[in-house]
């Protein structure tokens, strides 16, 4: 449980002893806290599309090498094209 001093410190950082701040536009009525969360979701969504996935460059090189070995557009693996191994094996 938080001690009184810890509680006072957190209270100084996050002063909640007031009505919520809101954003009002026509019929839209949102608390600032909810607006912050929505903006964060949009930012994370954009980053998820834009940021490269770890290992993407290494996998792309491996695919190019495999394509060179069997011909462009060929299938390098039995039963279909290249896949990402999920069992920890070589990519």
């Amino acid at each position, binding site marked *: 449980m938080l001690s009184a001093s810890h509680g006072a410190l957190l209270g100084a950082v996050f002063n909640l002893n007031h009505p919520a701040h809101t954003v009002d536009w026509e019929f839209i009525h949102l608390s600032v806290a909810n607006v912050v969360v929505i903006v964060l979701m949009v930012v*994370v*969504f954009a980053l998820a599309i834009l940021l490269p996935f770890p290992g993407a460059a290494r996998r*792309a090189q491996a*695919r190019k090498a495999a394509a060179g070995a069997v011909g462009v*557009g060929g*299938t390098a693996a039995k039963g279909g*094209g290249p*896949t*990402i191994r999920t069992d920890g094996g070589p990519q």
Partner: protein
Amino acid sequence: MSAVPSPDPTVPPSRSWTVRLRERGVTALPPEKLLPDGQPTYVASWIYVFGVASIASLIVIIGSGTILALKGPAWWHYTGVGHFFNSIHLWSVELFFFVMVIHLWGKYWMAAWRGGRGRVWVTGAITFLVAVPCALTGYVSQQNFDSQWISTQAKDAMNATGIGSFFNVTNFGQMYSYHILLLPVAVVALVIAHVLLIRRHGVVPPITLSQRIGSSTASTAPSGDGGPGEQSTSTQATS
């Protein structure tokens, strides 16, 4: 591809419902599809992470909620460990909705219902809709001034829609039952159905990849069905 051998025409079909159920299950979802050891290369993107992040946060929600249900309101209000688990439960719910909404946006903009995946999309959308009252019943089950405020505000909305007498948000016993049994069971069942359908139909490919397959192999592979032709083309699309 199916793991079920061709039926022997000399052997009469079994009349046992367990055999028929098993054969239908294995035909619909053979083991290599149920528990695959690989995924198409286009899955190597951050936007495909948010579905499993939703499931991870749901597991934390169920685990922390089980402990809260076992210990009761006095424990989560008046002890340090109870406060901790109460906070874990709250913030895992916040994270669940955060990542589930991003998952929903991602799947909406890539039209994830393509290639016969309509039921995958519908089960996901219904899961989101059922999760909202699941969270609401949790907020009104806290047993504090916050829950009193939320329940009296929500009561007006429920009465206005006409369901206030069936779904009484000021009735703690009813809300608690909804929150710890009925709605979680519905959410978990829907998530299981959602994941099994994804296993059956495969992860939806990017739209550009489906279009490329449709123009190059229109006579052999249906667009966006996760078939072999689609996977082989993913080499070109992602390199």
